[in-house]
């Protein structure tokens, strides 16, 4: 009897032992989201810089906009809106930017709390940050956080997939990403692709500790691995900017509210197998989300609140030496705060459209999602001026 039990235990655990002893190398980063810079002749293009609102103001507050490129070349944006952040009427909205007319069309509710709760079979208290990307099979993915009990620290990530550029979506599924009642995994940084079709999802943890993490998902949305980038209570909302199959930089929001707070950064030279110890960057960060884009000439663009406190400034930064030094290219926003009103230009998202233009969307005083569009000529002019 006992011998049979020994054998049973050995047979049961042997596949686990073999699996844990088999090393599977990290897949390489895909560079499909790298910004393309093309050769421009002197008279080819004039500088273009346009701004407008992407949201129409149907909700009292809006926040946390992100964008994704569609098959027809247009961009689709997602953001959440409602009476206020965390209110029960908050839904995730979407709208499509027609590149030709530069108009935002078809603004509508995509994720509504009650319907989503019913689809997930659970109680939902509130809905929060969405992030989106397009995978190698041209499918759109939308990840968003939801909370059943407590504050944002109790968040769980859900995801939906669309095969038709956001016209229809699968029912939402929950990611299991934490052993403590699956609580406290949130998204803000945009996902990215690996060359084998799997997905990198930058996430962060907010319960007791505050730290950035990186989830590796299969192409069907199963969590394959989760890497912690930092411990403690200081970092949030990582963004990942690959520069080659093996190299990438991560920048993270500083969650400390210290008077001299700056961004955190780390990097890998082996496709994320190992990440360098996190260090403080020179760029200021007033405990605010950031966005960025790697350019195909190796340069880096970041959109940040370029000061140590308050979010009344939003700036475009450029680095030609992989983040060692930064030049201010442009201030999208710079307003004076008054005792009565504090400006909030926050949660930016930077993307390039198929026509080569660059687009930034961000929360404008929590009232609207603002959209800024500029072309490569304008960007290059700013780069030349900054030198």
């Amino acid at each position, binding site marked *: 009897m*006992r011998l049979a*039990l*020994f054998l*049973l*235990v050995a047979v*049961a*655990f042997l*596949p*686990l*032992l073999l*699996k*844990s*002893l088999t*090393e*599977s190398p990290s897949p390489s980063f895909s560079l499909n989201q790298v910004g393309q810079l093309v050769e421009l002749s002197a008279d080819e293009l004039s500088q273009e810089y346009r701004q407008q609102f992407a949201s129409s103001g149907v909700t009292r507050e809006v926040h946390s906009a992100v964008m994704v490129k569609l098959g027809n070349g247009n961009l689709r944006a997602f953001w959440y809106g409602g009476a206020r952040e965390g209110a029960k009427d908050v839904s995730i909205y979407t709208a499509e930017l027609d590149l030709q007319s530069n108009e935002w069309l078809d603004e509508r509710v995509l994720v509504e709390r*009650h319907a989503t*709760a*019913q*689809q*997930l*079979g*659970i*109680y*939902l208290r509130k809905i929060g940050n969405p992030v989106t990307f397009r995978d190698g099979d041209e499918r759109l993915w939308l990840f968003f956080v939801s909370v*059943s*009990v407590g504050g944002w620290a109790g968040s*769980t990530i859900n995801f939906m997939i669309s095969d038709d550029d956001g016209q229809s979506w699968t*029912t939402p*599924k*929950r990611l*299991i990403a*934490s*052993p*403590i*009642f*699956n*609580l406290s995994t949130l998204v803000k940084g945009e996902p990215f692709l690996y060359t084998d079709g799997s997905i990198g999802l930058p996430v962060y*943890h907010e*319960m*007791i*500790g*505050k*730290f950035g*993490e990186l989830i590796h998902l299969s192409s069907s949305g*199963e*969590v*394959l*691995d*989760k*890497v*912690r980038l*930092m*411990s*403690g*209570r200081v970092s949030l909302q990582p963004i990942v900017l690959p520069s080659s199959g093996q190299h990438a930089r991560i920048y993270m929001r500083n969650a400390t509210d210290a008077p001299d707070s700056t961004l955190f950064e780390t990097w890998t030279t082996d496709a994320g197998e190992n990440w360098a110890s996190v260090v403080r960057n020179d760029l200021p960060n007033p405990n605010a989300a950031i966005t960025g884009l790697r350019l195909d000439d190796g340069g880096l663009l970041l959109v940040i609140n370029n000061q140590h406190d308050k979010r009344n400034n939003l700036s475009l930064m450029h680095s030609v030496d992989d983040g060692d030094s930064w030049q201010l290219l442009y201030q999208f926003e710079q307003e004076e705060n008054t005792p009565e009103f504090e400006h909030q230009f926050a949660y930016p998202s930077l993307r390039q459209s198929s026509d080569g233009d660059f687009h930034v969307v961000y929360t404008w005083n929590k009232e609207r999602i603002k959209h800024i569009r500029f072309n490569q000529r304008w960007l290059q002019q700013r780069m030349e001026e900054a030198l």
Partner: protein
Amino acid sequence: MMMETGIGILAATLLWLALLVKLTRRWLPRKLLVVVLLVGLAIALVPFNRLHVGGYIFSLTSYLSVSSVMLLLGFLFANLVGEHWRGFNSLWQSRQQWTAILIFFAIAGLFLYPMTAGLTLFDPYRLGYLGTPLSVALVVYLFGWALLCVVKRWYLLLLLLLMSVIVYYLKWLPSLNLWDYVIDPLVVIYSIFSLLKSGGCWLLRREPSTQQVS
């Protein structure tokens, strides 16, 4: 609703029924516990504000581990029909079996949860994906306990470990992380409190005799 969600809600409903039995068994004769179970089941079938009791509990707990589900099933079985199953009863009521179970879950939980919350850069939850060289430590830990269970005849814990591994292979939960099949915070909290309670009782019993000696 996905099939996995259904499994999660069923497990949460089991927790609801076990809580009802636990709360009422002191005052009710064993035969009436069946009635409590049936009433609990009836309540679980009625949606409140479009959601069943199991759905509300599932919203808080997420997926219970296989160990928890097995222990809940064992608890209900022991309280409702266990008296007619001597073999099961002697196993379920064995103090030695329970001490092994409580110690196993307490050690695993104290290792996993504080570091998962950000105490260190090392994240023990990552071991459960079995993708890093250190993952072998988790497998060896579980394997070691399973072997110990055979040697010491702790068949209840052995059953929990084997069932967790089998359900992991079958991927009945929407997770590829071995930890999610073996433990969850509920079974760990229960284990730690039970051990503290036993430790407290042991100390209280010991105190008078120590005084006598002195």
